[in-house]
Structure formats: structure tokens, C-alpha cells
């Protein structure tokens, strides 16, 4: 079952601004099942990072527990990573980002990790508008423990051994919107052309960027009757907004028909060009995002950039953090002198 090959990545070895090829953004070989959706997402990370010209060591990968969380070892081998405990990735990311906001934080989680055991931390990271990219590799099932339903399983979806789910699913997209996330997207592991630009835009977003990526589990949830199978997702997925990320130095050359594209400057540089495939939706409008999800409920799976707000301050700004990261401030600046202590002591006498 285990793939012995490296994750599928684009083989042409173009060098980016740092003289690095896509190979330089890969990690160790995946040990996930052959055909796992997660490996496609891993490949999308590799491509996005390479194309963004980001230095690998300036990224930090953080994850929880589960098949999805294991994947942080499979890309950006030259980045530091921390594979934490189940459902608690957001808190570790919070502490890390607070003391060094200059790194790119990539959180990889799954539907069990984020929507069951880690629902609380997921919600509170959104509340803080933590500046990170948070990707949920969503397959509706617990893979490592062999096929139990997860909290994202749809009503009526059938498990591998026949059980039908009757409980209401927790939809991370709607949840994130409700809680006030400032970048909410959905992708599909089977559509890299849509996913790579979403990852890039999410990385450049200031604040909490959540991408729910439908990522079929080939071993436990890819059968007839499952609503998270490849077949089901291909059939029903509905690209709403295609987001192209354009770096600062690149001029926009693509030709967009009037009314079909919106250009959005990103706080961290560059801009996102949103191409509407569904012309009725404006992802800057939160109410419209809710309407879109409601209108397509039960029929299609809306994908793309559902909502974006670049105006809200992120956690570091709310905490008035200095330009020099806290982890780089010289001790002499942090530790008051003995004379100060003497004065302080007078206040207790």
C-alpha cells in the first residue's frame, strides 16, 4: 500500500530567484497510501513555494496528528517543522508566530485534527487572526485508525463497511466564515491548477488563511456512497472563484474580460487576481459568501476563494509587537538593571 516513490512533483527543473529547483522544496518520501489525495497537496505546496521564490528555511511547518499531519515531513525538507500533539497545532503556531512573525507559518491538519479534537484551537486561532496558512486535508474519515467517520462526514455518506452517517457534518468553510476568518477557501487535491494559486494567496494573506482541501482517502473513503470520494468530488465540485497570485515584481499580463476579474493588493506584497467563474459572487462580501454556500448546499461543492478580507489586523498587530521579532531582541534590552530593581523594591516597602 505504501508509496515508495517521492510525491508527484513537476519534474522540470526551472531554477527560481534563489537558484533552487522544485526538488529543493521537497521533503522525505511519503509513506502514505499510493494515490492518497494528501500527496497531491504536498506537491502543490512544493510548487507554490518554489514559484513564490520563498527561501525554504524561512518557512515553519506545524502539524498535529493524523495522516495529514505526517505530510509536513514530505515537503520543504529545508524548513524546520514541528509535528505536535493531536488537535493542538494552532496553539504551537500561535506561540511560534508571536515571537517570530517573519517566518511563513504553514499549518497542516486534517478533519479529525481540526474539527473534532482540535475544534477549540482551530476556532481560537481564527479569533486571534493568527497570521498563518492553515490547510485542512479533508477526507471525511479517520485513516490511521482505519476508517471511522470524522466530523466532516456528510449526512448519508456511506463508510467502507456500510455504515451510514446520520450526524450533521461540521463544514470548516462555513465554520471559519462564521467565526470571522479573513481568508476562507476550498480546494480539491485533484485540481492543482486551482489549489497552487490558493496556497500562494493564502501564504501572502495577512491573517488567518484557511483552505479546506477535499482530499480523498483512497483506502477508507473512496467507494461508491462516499461523499468524499474522487468520483463524487469530481462530479460535484464547482469552482466559483479562481485566485491567481501575482508577485509584486510581475506585471499582470493576463487578459481578463471586464467584470470577470478583481485585483486585490495583498498586505504582504503582490496581489491576487480573482477570476469569477461564477459571476454572481464577490469574495469580499461576507454575506454573499454565506449565500453562496447556502444556495449550493446539497447539490454542488463550491470551491475557490470564498471570502477574503485584507483589512483586519492580525495577532501580532493586535499585540503591538515590535519590528524586531521577540526571539531576536538582545537580552540587555529585556533585562532591567539592578538600579531599577532597587527602585522597584522601594514600592514594596
Amino acid at each position, binding site marked *: 500500500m505504501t508509496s515508495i516513490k517521492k510525491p508527484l512533483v513537476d519534474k522540470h527543473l526551472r531554477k527560481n530567484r534563489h537558484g533552487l529547483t522544485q526538488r529543493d522544496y521537497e521533503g522525505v518520501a511519503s509513506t502514505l497510501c499510493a494515490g492518497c489525495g494528501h500527496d497531491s497537496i504536498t506537491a502543490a505546496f512544493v510548487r507554490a513555494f518554489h514559484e513564490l521564490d520563498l527561501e525554504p528555511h524561512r518557512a515553519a511547518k506545524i502539524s498535529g496528528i493524523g495522516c495529514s499531519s505526517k505530510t509536513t515531513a514530505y515537503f520543504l525538507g529545508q524548513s*524546520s517543522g514541528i509535528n505536535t500533539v493531536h488537535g*493542538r497545532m494552532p496553539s504551537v503556531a500561535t506561540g*511560534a508566530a*508571536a515571537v517570530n512573525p517573519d*517566518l511563513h507559518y504553514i499549518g497542516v491538519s486534517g478533519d479529525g485534527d481540526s474539527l473534532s479534537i482540535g475544534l477549540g484551537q482551530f476556532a481560537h486561532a481564527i479569533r486571534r487572526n493568527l497570521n498563518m496558512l492553515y490547510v485542512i486535508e479533508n477526507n471525511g474519515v479517520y485513516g490511521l485508525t482505519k476508517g471511522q467517520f470524522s466530523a466532516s462526514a456528510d449526512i448519508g455518506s456511506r463508510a467502507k463497511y456500510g455504515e451510514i452517517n446520520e450526524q450533521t457534518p461540521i463544514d470548516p468553510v462555513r465554520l471559519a466564515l462564521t467565526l470571522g476568518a479573513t481568508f476562507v477557501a476550498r480546494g480539491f487535491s485533484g485540481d492543482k491548477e486551482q489549489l497552487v494559486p490558493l496556497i500562494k494567496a493564502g501564504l501572502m494573506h495577512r491573517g488567518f488563511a484557511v483552505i479546506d482541501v477535499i482530499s480523498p482517502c483512497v483506502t477508507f473513503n473512496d467507494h461508491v456512497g462516499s461523499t468524499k470520494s474522487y468520483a463524487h468530488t469530481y462530479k460535484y465540485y464547482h469552482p466559483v472563484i479562481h485566485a491567481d497570485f501575482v508577485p509584486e515584481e510581475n506585471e499582470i499580463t493576463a487578459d481578463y474580460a471586464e467584470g470577470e476579474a478583481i485585483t486585490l493588493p495583498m498586505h504582504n506584497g503582490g496581489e491576487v487576481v480573482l477570476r469569477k467563474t461564477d459571476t454572481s459572487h464577490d469574495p469580499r462580501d461576507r454575506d454573499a459568501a454565506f449565500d453562496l454556500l447556502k444556495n449550493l448546499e446539497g447539490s454542488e461543492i463550491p470551491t475557490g476563494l470564498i471570502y477574503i478580507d485584507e483589512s483586519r489586523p492580525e495577532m501580532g498587530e493586535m499585540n503591538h509587537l515590535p519590528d524586531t521579532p521577540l526571539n531576536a*531582541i538582545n537580552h540587555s534590552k529585556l533585562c*532591567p538593571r539592578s538600579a531599577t*530593581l532597587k527602585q522597584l523594591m522601594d514600592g514594596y516597602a
Partner: protein
Amino acid sequence: MNVQTQTHAAGSTSVKVNDFVIKIGNVNGTGSASANGLLMKAIFRMGVPVVGKNLFPSNIQGLPTWYEIRVSKDGWTARSGDVDLMVAMNLESYEQDLKAVSPGGALLYDSTWPRPKLHGREDITVIGVPLAKMTNDGFANARTRVLMKNMAYVGAVAVLTGIDMAVIQTLVEDTFKAKPKLIEPNMKALMLGHDYITQNYDALPLRVEPMDETRDCILIEGNDAAALGCVYAGATFGAWYPITPSTSLMDGFKNHCRKLRVDPETGKNNYCIIQAEDELSAIGMVIGANWNGARSFTPTSGPGISLMSEFIGFAYYAEVPAVLFDIQRVGPSTGMPTRTQQGDILLAAYASHGDTKHIVLFPANPKECFELSVDAFDAAERYQTPVFVLSDLDIGMNEWMVPRFEWDDSRQPDRGKVLHAEDLEKVEKFYRYFDHDGDGIPYRTIPGEHPKGAYFTRGSGHNKFGGYTEDSEAYQEVLDRILQKWEKAADHLPGPVMQIAEEPTRRAILTVGGCDAAVREAIDRMAKDGLHFDYLRVKAFPFHSDIEAFISEHDIVFVVEQNRDGQLRQLLINETSAEKNQLVSILDYSGMPADTGLIARRITTHCQTEG
């Protein structure tokens, strides 16, 4: 129990000078805390050693609360076990408060309403002051009347015990500097109590007389002291979830940082405090910040440690530094949140599943909270592991009289083995968990500093190179090294405090943390009765080799601690060569701060019955 000076209601002959206890029984939420603090501070300002213990309920308004002020010319800071003057303001606890007065003592009550009969206490002096009536007549506003009743008894107690009114008045002026409107009514209330006693009663045989014993001391709570330690240690990040009795530690950190850590040029904060959604998240944040190379900490109490346990094991195994302040309260479960205990000793020592052993530091008073807080950050980074500072409610939330803190400007933080960018340039390849120096401590790097320093941190099985493994030998090699690292820390952590008896003895008392003051006083008392004990106080776990040596030199070692199960004793049996029958538990898990009388009585009884 030791022999006390007997004073009787009528015709008392002996006067207790600077050596007595005032206890105030009140209803919580009536503003009595500030009045009581004022009383204590006035004694301190008169140069007389004093300590105040706040015994309060887990409630905002309406339940019984007490405040105990011990005046001690010899500088003892524990509860003595006696009550010489009871100010019984709470009708609900009146009967109990009446009983608590030591023979020959006195009781002051609000005589606005008749009190139930004296329950046969003919051996005490009773003083009635119509506090409610006086303040009702003197003040119009209902809330003011309640608050001023407290100030009125402060005035009354001052006259009864000879506390300098001028000192109290100066304190009132200092206290309300920012709200000068409040000075006049407070002064007025003070004088109401003062004048009533002056006109109707003689002073009690309890006298506060000026001394010069507090000049080099301060009054400070342990949590505030620990917070100051965090500032001096250079901690930049703190995450927490509010929980009694640890909350004031983060309040203190915030307060100090606002004054000391805001960049004067940019106005930006050189610190970050995050109030987490729960303790699981708080420790996760602390681990994230430490992983990224910033000194960070979380203050909590027992229930928080329980919740943090999974992450503690992660930090232990992945070797991420972290500092945890456990301000212990009464357990198990919710227990009695506003009472004190030392019930988390075993929890802290071995927190989390699997084989885990931690470094634990045990402050005995606020001064040590300051010092050990700084040491904790050094140890956490030196040994790349979670370090617990095990304080408790008594130390953390009561104002103790301690020597002024000092700081050595040449002290540099021990950041442990960190390879920075310039070091990594010289390294061919970096392996995170490789025991390069043979001391069990690997090198770490700070994420983002240099491409060569990148590594993958995991709580899953890993080999010495940092790679995932399920190989038995590779797994054991790392786990054994972590143990070795911990064992080697023992003699480098703060050593025990020892005191040898004036006369050679085979008996000893061993204790930990906040019991220190009571045990040392008990030793002093028992020595006067001819019972001599050597003394040792544990300051850190793993145990320093001196501790094992000390135990082996004695036939019997009384282990005094505040929990039911003798947790320190268990830990000593587990981690040293001490024999079970050599260690005798003296336990007090009442929730009250350690009591000298109780400890002396129990040990004396044991020695008498055992011969």
C-alpha cells in the same frame, strides 16, 4: 504545644510586645482586604516584622473570609497557631471565631446588634464597638458605610495594640493618592474607631512598639515576585488561562512589562501575553515560542497541569524548553480553589504518559519565587526540557516579609547549547538529537536562522539524528540519553538548604516549599524544650546528592509536607536510597498555611511516644 504567655481577661500582668496574632473574621466582598492590608503595612512601617495571611473563600461576595496578621519580633513568618485578638465582624462565623481565640486573648465585635452568648468563654476579654451604628451615622452612602466599617475597626485595633495612628494616616494618604476624595472619609472612619476605644476601653496587653527590623525588607506576594523574575530572566512570551491562585502572576508580569518593556522609541511591546482558550492551548503556545527561541512561560495551578500533561510529555521527549509555574491549590479535582496545599509534587515530578521525569524547583517564599523563576528559565534552556516552579497559594497570594531582592548586572542568561547562523556555517551537517559532548544534552537551532539548522521536531519515535524511527535500539538510545541528561542535572540545580542543630542529633526534619518558615520556627521551639533536629529543605528535583547523604546520616527523618499522601516522602523513597521506615510523614492538608504549633506538637508527640 509550646508554653505560651498566659494573659487573662482581668488583671493581666504580662504584656505581649511585638509578638502576637490579630485575626479578622469578615464577609468577603466588603472591602476588608485593603483595610487589613493597611493594618499589616502600618506594623511593617513601624519597623516590626509582620506577615499577613489571607484565608478567603472561592466566591466574590457574601462568604466568610479571614485575615491573620502575625506580629513577630523574631521575624517568624509562619502562622503561630494562636489568636490573641479576634476581630469578629461576621455573624455567620462568630461562634467559630469566638472558639478560635487563645486563652487570655481578646475579641472585638460589632456591638450595634446584641451578640449571641459568649459560649462560656470567660477567659477572654470582649470589646464591643458599635461599628455599624457609627458608620451609619457618619456616612450617607450604603456602600461607603460598609467599607468604612472596616476602617473603623482598623482605628479601634490601632488603639488597642498601640499601632501608630500617624503611620496609618500616612498610609491612607499614600493609598488614595490617585483618588484624594477618598482620604477624608477614610480618615474620619479611622478616627471613629480610634475615639470610641479611647473613650471606653483600656489598651490590651498586646503592644506594637517601634523596632528597626524591616529596613532591608519588603512586603510582596510570591506571584508578583515570580513575575518580576520572568522579566529579569528575559522572558518575552507568556500564555495562560486564568485560574486561581495563579492569576496574579500574569497580572504582575503584565504590570511590570507595561513599565519596563515598552520600547520608549516605538511604543511597541517587547513582550507578548496571550490569554489562551484553555491550559492545553497555553502550554502549546509556550512550547511554540520556546521552539522558536524565545523564553516563555505559563502560570497555572494543578487542574491546569492535568490538562497540560500531554503537551508536557511532548516537550520532554522532543526536548523543547518550557517554564511552568504551578501555584498549587487544594485538590483533587476542583478541590478548594482558594486554599493552599502541596498536592502536585508527584504530578509535577512525573507529569505525562510514558517514561517522563521533570525538573522541579520549590520556592519557599517570595524571594525564592523571584530567584528560582530566573533559575527555571536557565535550567529549561540548559537541559532543553520543561521546568516546573512549584509554588502554592500561600506563597503566591499572601504578602510575605522578605529581604529586598538583588540583581547582579553581570548575570547573563544560560541559553544552553544553541547553534546560531554563524556556528552552523562551520558545521558540516547538523543533527538535532546527537549527543556530541557526551553529557546527554544535544544542540538545538532556532528555526529560520540558517538553512543548515532546519530540523523536524516530533513527539513520535525518533532516532538521534531526528528522523522518525520504530527501531527499538534507536528509540531506546534517545530515551536513555534524555534520562541521563536529567540525572546529571541533579547536582547543578539549586542545592538543599541545611541547618545543623546546636547539639548533635540523629533526628532530622526535611521539608519543602512554604512549610519552611513553620518548620524552622518549630525546630526553634522544640530546641527550647530539649528536642534537637537537623534540618533540610529541598529546593529542586531531581534530588541533589547532598539530600541522600543527609538522610543517611539520620535515624529518623520527619518529612513535613502539605498533602495527604506524603508525596515528597514517596518521591524520596523512589529516587534516593532512603529506607521507608526512616522517613516519618508529618502531614497537614487542611488547606491552611503551615502552622508552627501543629508541626511542633506532632513531632514532639512522636518523639515522646517513640522515646
